[in-house]
Structure formats: C-alpha cells, structure tokens
C-alpha cells in the first residue's frame, strides 16, 4: 500500500499530537463533558443509579440555594476589591521600585517572594499573625484596632482574606507592570519633564497611557483568578464563621465532597462557575481587540 503525501502528513501530525491529546482527552475533555451530563442528573456519588432531572439542579442553585447565592455575592464583593486593590498596589509598587537604581532588585525580590509560597502555607502563617501576633501587639502597644476578632467576625475575616490574597498576589502583577514600564521609551518622560510636568502629571499623562495594555492584562488576570479563589479562604477561615466567607469554589467543593455528596447538583454549580469565567474571557477578548484597533 502506498500512501499519498497528504495522508502521510496527516498520520505524522496525529502521531506527534497523539500523546498530548490522549492525556488531555482523559483528564480534561472527558471530565468537562461528563460534568455537563452529570449536572442534569440527581447522581449522589454513592448510588450507581441516577436519573435525569433536566435543568432542575440549575434552577435550584440559582433560586433556592441561599448559601450558593450568598457565595456568589461574597465572591463578587471579593472580586471587585481584588481587581481595584491588587492592580493599584501593583502599579504603585512597580512605579516606585522602577524609580530606584541600587535597591530596585532587592525590593523586587522581596515583593515577589510570597508569590512563590503556596497560599495554604501563607494562609496558615497569616492565621498565626491574625490570631496570636496581632492581639499580642495590641496588648503591648495599645494599638487597639489590631485586636479584632479577625477570623471570627465576618467583616474582619473578609479583610483578613483580602490581606492574605493581596500579600500573595500583588508581586505577580508587579512583575508584569515592571516589564511594561521598562518598555516605555525614556525620551517621552524626558520631554514631559522639559515641558514642566510634575511627577503626578508625568505618571497620569505619559506612564499610565503607555501601560494600558498591561493594565488590561492585569485586570483580567485578577478577575480570572479571583472568581476561582479557593486556597486563601480554605486556609484562613474555611468559609466561616458559619458560611459567612464561603466563596463559589468552596461551596462547590463542600457540596460535592464534604456535606451532601450531591455530585449532580454540585456539577451544575461547577458549570455555572465555568459560564461566569467564560463570560469574562469573552468580554476580555472583545476589549483587547478594540484596544488593538485604537492603538
């Protein structure tokens, strides 16, 4: 049998792509499609028999499950705070360390370090800070505002989660912003300085417009990771007190593996999370396209 050149090329293409495709199909595609299927059943993970229930799980999750709705609202609150704070702090730090010459790399090393540490480890360390160290400092110095029920009071545990997340995440965005700042031609800032612009004007009218593409990336990276937040909450509060700080991913996790074992129902929630993340990405691609046209 002789193969035409085209057939041969197709066979070679498949041979090169096959190993990757195999692992990918088994551990990503199959679970993804399987999840969609299970989301329309009442499968409970233990009982091999289950029946189809259509969209009942979705309806229940979005109308009847106050814990899930609260988790979505709490996650939204978290996302908004993270997008604003994480990017603002990262840009601030990037601008400030770029203005240094000798201490630049030292500060960059320090600020990026938490990013290397798992948020599980970081979360436990911060738990020690919030429950042991801060009350101790408050007792010895009279800084009374430090002595709060950081983990036990929902308002303060939200702040604690934000502090942990920012501590772990700011360095990553800072690296991106530093790379963007280094791409700005220095003559732009020089001519702004000659024209009499002060530091703020130079930042607002020269630096910021020049790093807009990086800001877009930074905002969407934060959006994407914040909607999926899990470790920071798991290690610090476990979703508590009660379920006051439960986020979407934790709610899915507990629904499936801790509380009820309602796999089918939890799958529906998992698909809802997927739809949220996909929506963000579609918006992101739109925005980025428009920006490119303008530029």
């Amino acid at each position, binding site marked *: 049998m002789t193969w035409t050149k085209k057939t041969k090329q197709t066979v*070679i293409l498949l041979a090169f792509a096959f190993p990757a495709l195999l692992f990918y199909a088994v551990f990503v595609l199959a679970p993804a499609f399987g*999840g969609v299927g299970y989301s329309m059943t009442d499968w409970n993970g233990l009982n091999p028999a289950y029946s189809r229930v259509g969209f009942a799980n979705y309806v229940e999750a979005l109308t009847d499950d106050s814990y899930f709705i609260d988790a979505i609202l709490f996650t939204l609150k978290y996302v908004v705070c993270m997008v604003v704070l994480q990017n603002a702090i990262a840009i601030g730090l990037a601008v400030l360390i770029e203005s240094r010459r000798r201490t630049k790399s030292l500060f960059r090393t320090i600020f990026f370090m938490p990013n290397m540490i798992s948020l599980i480890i970081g979360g436990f360390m911060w738990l020690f800070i919030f429950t042991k160290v801060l009350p101790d400092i408050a007792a010895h110095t009279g800084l009374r505002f430090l002595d709060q029920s950081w983990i036990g009071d929902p308002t303060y545990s939200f702040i604690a989660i934000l502090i942990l997340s920012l501590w772990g995440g700011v360095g990553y965005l800072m690296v991106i912003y530093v790379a963007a700042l280094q791409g700005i031609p220095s003559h732009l800032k020089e001519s702004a300085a000659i024209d009499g612009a002060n530091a703020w004007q130079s930042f607002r009218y020269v630096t910021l417009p020049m790093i807009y593409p990086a800001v877009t990336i930074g905002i969407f990276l934060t959006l994407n990771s914040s909607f999926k937040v899990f470790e920071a909450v798991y290690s610090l509060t476990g979703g508590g007190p009660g379920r006051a700080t439960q986020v979407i991913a934790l709610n899915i996790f507990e629904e499936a593996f801790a509380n009820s074992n309602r796999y089918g129902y939890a799958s529906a929630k998992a698909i809802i999370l997927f739809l949220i993340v996909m929506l963000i990405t579609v918006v992101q691609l739109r925005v980025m396209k428009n920006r490119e046209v303008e530029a």
Partner: protein
Amino acid sequence: MILGKGGRAGSVVIVLFLGIAAVFTLFPIYMGLLNSLKTEGDMLNGILSIPSRLEFGNYADAFRKIHYWRSLGNTAEVAAIGLAGIILFASMAGYKLSRSTGRLSNAIFLVFVLSMLIPFHSIMITLTRISRSLDVQGSTWGLGFIYIGLGVSFAIFLYHGFVKSIPRELDEAAVIDGCGDFRLFFVVIFPLLLPVTATTAILNLLWMWNDFLLPLLMLTNSKSYTLLISTNMLFGEYGNNDWSAILASLVLAMLPVIVFYLLLQKYILHGIAEGAVKG
C-alpha cells in the same frame, strides 16, 4: 526615572515607603521562623521577642509529624512525572501543530486552547470519578499523569508560538538530508526550543509544587501525601493548639521553594512575565 523631580526628600520618602511595604511582606515569614524556634513557654512570654534559646525540638517534631523526607520525595516525584510528560508531549504537539497548516491541525490546536478557559473547579468532580475508575487515584504517579493532562494545553500554546520563530528552511534542509520526522524533531528542533522549554518548566514546576486542591482530592493514601497535604493534615489535627510544631512544618514546607527562588530568581521572573503576557 519616572519620579524624577522629587529630589532628595522625595527619594527618602519613596525608600521609606518601600521599606514599610517590604517589612509587611516579610513579616509573616519572619514571625513564623522566629516562633518556630521557641518553646511554647517562650512564645507565651512574648511573640515578638527573640527566643531566650533556640529550640530545634520543634523541627524534630515537625520532621516526624509531616514525614518530611517522604512528603518531599512524593512532591518531587509528582512534579517530575508531570514535568517530563508536559514538556515531551507538548513540545511534540506544539511543533507539529505549528508547522502543519491544514484544517485538522487548526482544529486540534483550537480544542487545546479553548480548554484553557475551563476552571479546575468545574471539572474536579467528574475528574475524581474518572480517576477512581481508571485506578489512578491515590498514587503519586497517577497524580503526575493527571497533571500532564491538565498542563499540556498551556504548554502547547507556548511552544506553538515559539516554533514560528524557527525558520522552516531548517526542516527542509534536514529532510533533504534524509532525516525522518521524529529524528528531525528530537535532534534538530528540540534543542532549539530551549528558551521556551525553560519557561514552560518553571511555570509548570511552580504550579504543580504549590497546587493544593487536586492532590487533596486524589491522594487518599497517607503514604503518598505531598508536602502541602501533609502540612494541611497536621494543621487539621492540631489546629490552633500546637503552633510550635505547625510553624516549624510551615517553614520546612516553604524552604524548597524559597531556595529555588533565590537561586533561579532571574529565570523565574522572566518566565512569569513571559507566561502572563502570552496567556
């Protein structure tokens, strides 16, 4: 310089501000390290103070409780299997998909790229079930295999882009010399992919090393626990009550990444910036 006109006073303010931010960043790590070297009594006397004598007993305790060497070995094993598979399979696929122009090749590439949208939490439930029925749940090698599946698409994306910068003439010359497809790839192309291989290796190593939820779901046998899972289990057991041993185990658990970071910082920061912009 961006903040050029501040002068000397401005400069002092900036350094002061950066210094405070640096203290804030290092504070939890420093407190963890400091108190991991104290006896319980020393800690009660003053959390902020320097220990009256260094107590290494906490570390001996932590070593035993989290089975440090075994956990470290398991983590390294998972990461090594995952990394080897991701680099080998993704470079092969990324190269060929980038070189082929047909509709089939575009479709395969699109399938890989689109999946990068799927959050892990959306597939974890069914993934757990599939892994159980394939008997890969519970073992370190099984976990490594799953990481290959989860990691290849982003790696293919990176390789696919990089291959475009390698001239096609190189492939053609090798083919004329009678080189087969696989030999061409492994002998000629793969060494040229080194920069993107380094980026892929760093990003994936960090991800697998610090990933928590997947091993939590997969490692049902305590003999195959990774560092993070052992630490988490220790915390679950003692909670808020035995901070000495827990802090020592936290320091032990983060030690490998910190060393790795301080040694390879330049490459890591480069890889991060590279990966973020392309992703």
